[in-house]
């Protein structure tokens, strides 16, 4: 056991850039460990000699750390700050450690070292690719009841948190001349070149520090400085420029149309104690004139038997752990490569005092300065050889090496780590997301950016430019940098590489040579897919799930493609590349949702009188985004009692109702009446100033779109009301017709829904109650009859006073400027209370209008109901020659018999209240399914009628008056009688009271 203050036994003194004194304590599976500030969880675990960090998805094989970046397919862990802030599937190679970090391994039970699920590995011959498509086909019923639930329980990686996330997430829209994605040599050069021309630049990189590959390169200089020091200095310089925004820990995850790029900035995931109001992440929605993609390249692993053993990793990762974090990944590190860059890693390790027993190179004659340098350091280079298998289970312990071509003697070499490189895959993900077309570079077996679809340019390794000086020149020229010149020296060329399975894992073998570590896909699985008839790479991908894990196959796509191409006997470009989709790396729901949580999830619209309703204890009904007072329960009352009381009070005395949410549109201009003639079925030209009319608006197809009362305030000014829910769409409907069909009319529309608070006072005592408060308006029946509007003052403030009714009682709707709404409501309420004035909510409003047979558009109509069907033929101007829907109403099916018409229903038992939506039949003795002839649209208990009432749409309803129909329900058939739609005050005398 090392001392608790040691930051790990594999920390190499004098190596890396972390400060030995700055120790950080963390736990992994409950084990207390110490790392250094600046460590990732991966580097800190490796420093402590821990390679085994998880179990694989399907076979539960022990897995270690493959990479040192966001491409990591293996080292996925669970990070927990507290119960609510726990995140599964965090890549240990991305997560920075902080004091108190708690990490846990996943997909193992009971423990990481002894995992019951690993029996899957033994049964793996029975679990080939696509096994679930075949194995669980029979019997059919078992899929839903047995197979799917079992598979779902066994599958999946990580456990979702059980509590709501308490973190905050922010959002920022940003615009720039140039967005540079990637802060390596290419990205820094491009950002610097552009910034010096004065351009507005945003530079982002997913790592905590800029530098990219310069973080692990050695012996490289730029502008005479050590390359990483240059990167740090350049990043600092850029940060100080007012036209540059440098975003570290920021991933460009999605490239959308018109250079719109989504970034996620991780703000607090690396902090031990984030400030209370600090967002965890910030979503940046960037619109860039131009985008420079400097996304680098990702190293590929070698595909050979047991290449997934912990301790086997990418050569560049080992180099980063050494040169940046000061951590040796082993003490006896083997090297397996088809490429030069692994030599550089071997050389750095060797110089740090690590034993490099062998470099196994599949190439027959690797010839490059690094090869000679390795040999000069005394490292044995086995050219033309391959690693046929790795030994060891929870950590690699040996490699078996044979000549490529077979034959020869097999050697078993003891190692405690193996680093590998099959070459580099340019990161064309974002380029591809931008709808750019990739082109095949046959010489180097890689896809490179081809035709660009947007104003973006790829520079450096992601563009296939391997040489550092060429990269810098390319980056500067891409941004048309004027004065900036950068000179580089050193750097290992990335010559060589291979795609597909390595020797010993070919078509004639059955070894487990992993292509996709995260989804446990082997070379054998890809070949099976081809044998099963999958000839498109898209099908191979779905059959094997290769590249379909959260890493999106960053390390596996090219190998999978090459193996499939070989099996198909086709060249790689003929098999094609699967599509790259956003996000580049997984993005939290929190960052996408950002501010839209809790109170900001959706706007909650409250009326100007809301506070009064709330103070009365009224429950609220959601109507769209509006909160409307539902009813006003008094002590000891349940909902029904409260509603019955409110309904009776309105008819016996008076009620007061908040109708502020009604849509209002002011129609102004000399052609206002002409315009309304065209939008409504009713005639308007002859409506007198100061009078109102109930109007019906149709769609072109003749069906009812909306309704409402319209008042004429002047020859050229109308006050239109709409339903609450219809307000925005009616405004759009009217504006649409005005602009596209009737642009010759001199008329303008203004939404005034929110200008006016609307207080309905309804009932026999309505006039008596408001009269003392009103100035300048004669309220007498003669001066102000039903359906009229006057302007004057109430409670000292201006009002548009409507005499109108949605209850069947005489009544008024008092419109006052919104801020006065509550004060006027309170004054009216106080004046009316002694006379029995009772506040009523939306439920009572619904019942009162149903007692009168007044329809609610959207409840008693459903978009297939004409005015004739709804019994509103009287509202159609008989002499009108044009209005929206006039031709629709003449359609053959709209005038044919057999349409459903709105009728009233009375249950034979007056106490039975029908269910809204219930189906109606003529003969309940028919076998099921019966012939359904209609349905109930509105149904209530009416205290005023002393019985239940209902409205319904019934085939040929108006011809069925007095007929008995039936409503079959689960607990019996209900008998109903068809009646007219008016249940109360059939003659309508009360309106004029």
């Amino acid at each position, binding site marked *: 056991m090392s001392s608790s203050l040691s930051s790990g036994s594999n920390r190499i003194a004098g190596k890396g850039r972390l400060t030995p004194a700055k120790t950080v304590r963390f736990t992994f599976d409950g084990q207390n460990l110490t790392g250094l500030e600046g460590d990732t969880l991966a580097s800190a675990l490796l420093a402590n000699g821990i390679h085994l960090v998880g179990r694989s998805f399907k076979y539960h094989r022990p897995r270690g750390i493959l990479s040192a970046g966001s491409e990591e397919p293996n080292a996925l862990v669970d990070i927990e700050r507290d119960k609510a802030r726990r995140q599964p599937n965090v890549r240990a190679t991305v997560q920075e450690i902080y004091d108190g970090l708690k990490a846990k391994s996943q997909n193992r039970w009971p423990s990481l070292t002894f995992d019951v699920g690993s029996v899957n590995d033994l049964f793996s011959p029975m679990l080939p690719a696509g096994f679930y498509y075949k194995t669980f086909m029979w019997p059919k019923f078992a899929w839903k009841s047995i197979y799917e639930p079992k598979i779902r329980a066994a599958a999946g990686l990580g456990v979702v948190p059980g509590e709501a996330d308490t973190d905050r997430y922010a959002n920022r*829209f940003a615009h720039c001349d140039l967005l540079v994605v990637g802060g390596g040599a290419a990205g820094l050069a491009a950002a610097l070149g552009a910034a010096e021309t004065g351009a507005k630049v945003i530079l982002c990189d997913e790592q905590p520090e800029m530098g990219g590959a310069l973080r692990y390169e050695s012996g490289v200089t730029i502008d005479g400085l050590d390359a990483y020091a240059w990167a740090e200095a350049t990043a600092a310089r850029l940060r100080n420029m007012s036209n540059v925004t440098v975003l570290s820990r920021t991933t460009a995850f999605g490239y959308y149309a018109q250079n719109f790029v989504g970034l996620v900035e991780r703000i607090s995931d690396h902090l031990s104690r984030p400030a209370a109001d600090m967002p965890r992440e910030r979503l940046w929605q960037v619109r860039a004139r131009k985008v420079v993609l400097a996304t680098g390249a990702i190293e590929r692993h070698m595909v050979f038997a047991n290449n997934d053993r912990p301790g086997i990793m990418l050569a560049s990762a080992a180099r980063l752990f050494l040169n940046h974090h000061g951590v040796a990944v082993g003490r006896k590190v083997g090297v397996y490569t088809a490429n030069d860059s692994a030599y550089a890693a071997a050389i750095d390790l060797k110089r740090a005092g690590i034993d490099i027993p062998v470099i196994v190179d599949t190439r027959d004659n690797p010839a490059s300065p690094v090869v000679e340098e390795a040999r000069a350091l005394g490292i044995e280079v086995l050219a033309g050889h391959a690693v046929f298998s790795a030994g060891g289970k929870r950590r690699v312990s040996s490699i078996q090496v044979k000549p490529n071509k077979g034959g020869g003697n097999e050697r078993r070499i003891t190692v405690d780590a193996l680093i590998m490189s099959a070459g580099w895959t340019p990161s064309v993900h974002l380029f591809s997301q931008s709808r750019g077309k990739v082109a095949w570079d046959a010489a180097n077996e890689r896809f490179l950016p081809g035709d660009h679809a947007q104003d973006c340019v790829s520079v450096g390794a992601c563009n296939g430019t391997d040489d550092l000086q060429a990269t810098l020149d390319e980056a500067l020229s891409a941004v048309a940098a004027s004065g900036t010149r950068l000179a580089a020296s050193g750097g290992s060329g990335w010559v060589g590489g291979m795609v597909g399975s390595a020797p010993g894992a070919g078509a004639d073998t059955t070894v487990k040579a992993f292509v996709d570590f995260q989804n446990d896909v082997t070379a054998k699985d890809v070949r099976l897919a081809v044998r099963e008839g999958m000839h498109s790479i898209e099908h191979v991908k779905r059959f094997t799930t290769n590249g379909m894990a959260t890493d999106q196959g960053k390390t596996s796509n090219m190998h999978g493609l090459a193996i499939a191409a070989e099996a198909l006997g086709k060249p790689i470009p003929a098999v094609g590349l699967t599509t790259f989709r956003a996000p580049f790396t997984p993005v939290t729901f929190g960052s996408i949702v950002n*501010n839209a949580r809790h109170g*900001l999830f959706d706007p909650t619209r409250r009326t100007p009188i809301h506070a009064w309703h709330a103070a009365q204890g009224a429950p609220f009904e959601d109507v769209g985004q509006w909160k409307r007072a539902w009813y006003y329960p008094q002590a000891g009352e349940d909902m029904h009692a409260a509603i019955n009381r409110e309904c009776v009070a309105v008819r016996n005395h008076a009620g007061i109702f908040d109708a502020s949410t009604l849509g209002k549109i002011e129609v*102004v201009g000399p052609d206002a009446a002409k315009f309304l003639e065209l939008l409504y079925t009713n005639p308007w030209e002859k409506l007198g100033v100061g009078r109102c009319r109930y109007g019906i608006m149709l769609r072109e197809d003749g069906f009812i779109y909306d309704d409402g009362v319209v008042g004429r305030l002047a020859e050229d000014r109308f006050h239109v009301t709409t339903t609450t829910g219809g307000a925005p769409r009616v405004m759009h409907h009217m504006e649409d017709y005005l602009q596209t069909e009737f642009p010759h009319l001199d008329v303008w529309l203004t939404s005034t829904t929110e200008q006016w608070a609307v207080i309905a006072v309804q009932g026999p005592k309505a006039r008596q109650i408001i009269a003392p408060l009103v100035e300048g308006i004669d309220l007498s029946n003669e001066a102000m009859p039903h359906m009229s509007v006057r302007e004057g003052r109430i409670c000292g403030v201006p009002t548009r006073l409507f005499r109108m009714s949605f209850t069947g009682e005489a009544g008024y709707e008092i419109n006052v400027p919104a*801020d006065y709404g509550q*004060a006027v409501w309170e004054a009216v309420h106080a004046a009316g209370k002694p006379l029995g004035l009772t506040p009523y909510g939306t439920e009572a409003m619904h019942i009162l209008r149903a007692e009168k047979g007044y329809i609610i558009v959207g409840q008693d109509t459903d978009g297939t109901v004409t005015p004739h069907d709804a019994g509103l033929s009287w509202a159609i101007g008989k002499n009108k020659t044009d209005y929206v829907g006039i031709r629709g109403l003449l359609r053959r099916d709209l005038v044919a018999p057999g349409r459903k018409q709105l009728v009233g229903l009375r249950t034979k038992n007056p106490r039975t209240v029908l269910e809204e939506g219930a189906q109606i039949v003529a003969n309940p003795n028919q076998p099921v399914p019966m012939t359904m002839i209609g349905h109930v649209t509105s149904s209530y208990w009416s205290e005023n009628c002393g019985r239940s009432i209902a409205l319904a749409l019934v085939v040929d309803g108006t011809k069925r008056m007095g007929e008995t129909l039936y409503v079959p329900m689960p607990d019996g058939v209900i008998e109903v009688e068809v009646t007219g739609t008016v249940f109360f005050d059939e003659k309508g005398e009360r309106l004029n009271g």
Partner: protein
Amino acid sequence: MADMSSATRLHPLRADRQSGRTVSVTPAGDATRISLRARPDAVAKLSRLLGLSLPTRPKSTAVAKDGRAALWLGPDEWLLIDAPDSDVAAVLARADVLHSAVDVSHRNVGIIVSGEGADRTISGGCPQDLSLAAFPVGAASRTVLGKIEVIVWRTGEDSFRIECWRSFSEYAYSFLQESAKDCGI
């Protein structure tokens, strides 16, 4: 007999909340607002009556000496903002050119966002480019903030007036408060 002058205004927002470290978000005072619609041939006459030159280019505003402002919202649409006791409605009623003037004083609510980072605060929910080059002092635009429609008017390098409909003001106010918190970091 009830007191005829008893109806008092109730603003939907209360200026009692903390803002960001450098940004303050506060409700604007009451104002007279008119939605003005007119065709190009009426602009000159209406401008004379109003005592300002009605802007005719997108994102532009005109402010008279007395503070009366006209914000361009569309090719035939302006929002006039004036003092609460303004006579602008009466002035327009006298205009004998074709136009539509509708009082929307109570329909809208104003919110003032000011201080260093005011632009970033609004950029938390508004996709417009609010840099001084693209959105200079005096620029105004009908746009979105989070899930609602707003008008953004830049009244100074570090100050903006947001106008939205009354029932959306609580959302706008809370949204800007939340966003302001992010801008001090």
